[in-house]
């Protein structure tokens, strides 16, 4: 964890890399929502932070004043590494998004499900006899790495490499652009090799699909396919790893919810949506490109906006008992996968992986409890990075 200058006032000097935010951001957001619903910091060259659902929604919908060309708040603007469609604005956004949607529909996910369940069980096999495990390291992080490798048609054993790149892009790279660039370069090389292989001999996998997909009236080129693959890898791993980890963290420390899910498995879909609401892993960002006013606050061009879906999801104006985790919550318009045109393309995959991870764990190990210190990721994706649990 990097050393950060002390925060004077979260309303005027917030810092999402500060240990207090990393360990428990919810009280900070709750206080800001009351006192100063659109906070600002001069750190990171100027960032706004809306904490009300309505304001987060308004920014997410307003693609005229808020651009996606920068979607991560970093110490300094990095050289552009476009990863369409997440970094695209209208009108380029729509075709770039459409081409990625078909492989991630619920029907497509059904074809992935058997392999996802097998992966979960292979992982559980390794630690079930031991009586304890680190559920973040040995379980949560391994599932998305292997599932996405399976979908892409890449060796599931390349997971260590993926995790290294993601750590470099989303954590170390926030304060050290050279690390970010090096990781992006390595990813490009890696994917280009596989893209060329598929170009010569297509297979039944996502890389081959991308290469054969029509995009703006022509086949997607190699370079574009590599950019899309970089995005899918970065967006598809530590996000879901964090989501799975937070589910297990909650169930370890809340035996009543865990036992209820074991007894009433039909509650699982509602419970997963509630975990997504309460522990939404992803905070996106936008760059202000035209001055505008939202929620009584003027947004100045050149500054960034943190799009805190996790904070929006805790807004009592939108959710009854917003600070409570209610696994049978009936009405839940949570924004964990974003709102508007940039809704997470992989949301159905994330749900599948979270559901499978929790179901298979509860089947094999219905009783478990916390067994040591939990640590959390820093940056724009929040989830447990160490999660020791004891079985029985």
């Amino acid at each position: 964890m990097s050393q950060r200058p002390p925060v004077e006032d979260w309303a005027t000097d917030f810092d999402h890399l500060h240990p207090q935010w990393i360990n428990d951001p919810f009280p900070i957001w709750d206080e800001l929502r009351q006192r100063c619903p659109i906070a600002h910091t001069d750190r990171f060259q100027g960032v706004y932070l809306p904490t009300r659902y309505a304001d987060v929604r308004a920014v997410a919908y307003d693609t005229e004043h808020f651009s996606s060309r920068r979607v991560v708040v970093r110490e300094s603007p990095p050289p552009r590494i476009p990863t369409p469609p997440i970094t695209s604005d209208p009108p380029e956004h729509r075709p770039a998004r459409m081409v990625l949607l078909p492989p991630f529909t619920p029907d497509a996910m059904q074809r992935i499900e058997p392999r996802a369940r097998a992966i979960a069980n292979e992982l559980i096999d390794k630690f079930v006899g031991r009586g304890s495990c680190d559920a973040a390291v040995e379980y949560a992080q391994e599932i998305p790495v292997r599932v996405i490798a399976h979908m892409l048609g890449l060796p599931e054993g390349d997971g260590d490499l993926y995790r290294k790149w993601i750590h470099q892009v989303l954590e170390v790279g926030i304060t050290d652009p050279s690390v970010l660039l090096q990781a992006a370069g390595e990813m490009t090389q890696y994917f280009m090799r596989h893209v060329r292989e598929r170009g010569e001999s297509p297979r039944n996998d996502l890389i081959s699909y991308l290469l054969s997909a029509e995009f703006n009236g022509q086949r997607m080129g190699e370079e574009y396919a590599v950019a899309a693959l970089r995005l899918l890898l970065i967006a598809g791993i530590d996000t879901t790893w964090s989501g799975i980890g937070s589910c297990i963290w909650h169930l370890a420390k809340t035996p009543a919810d865990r036992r209820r899910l074991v007894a009433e498995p039909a509650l699982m879909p509602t419970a997963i949506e509630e975990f997504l609401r309460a522990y939404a892993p992803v905070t996106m960002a936008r760059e202000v490109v035209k001055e505008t006013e939202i929620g009584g606050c003027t947004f100045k061009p050149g500054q960034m906006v943190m799009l805190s879906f996790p904070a929006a999801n805790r807004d009592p104006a939108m959710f009854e008992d917003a600070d409570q985790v209610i696994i049978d919550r009936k009405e839940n318009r949570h924004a964990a996968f974003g709102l508007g045109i940039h809704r997470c393309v992989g949301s159905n995959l994330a749900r599948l992986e979270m559901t499978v991870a929790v179901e298979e764990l509860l089947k094999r190990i219905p009783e478990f409890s916390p067994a040591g210190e939990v640590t959390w990721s820093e940056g724009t994706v929040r989830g447990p990075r160490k999660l020791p649990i004891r079985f029985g």
Partner: protein
Amino acid sequence: MADAGKLKVRVDRDRCQGHNRCKALAPELFDLDEYGNAREKGDGTVPPGLEEKAYLAKSNCPEFAVEVIET
């Protein structure tokens, strides 16, 4: 709640972003296209017994794209 058979659901296709919440909660009332975006089944008429699901689909849509119309 309105009488059975007098409700219709409708998906605003411009608002729908493919969150898939309606289809997950009320598969009898919604279909998805090849991109995962939703539309009401048939003319949207809610068969008797599915009224609660129709309202659930509406109140869980993050984009406010699902309408329940009392005819």
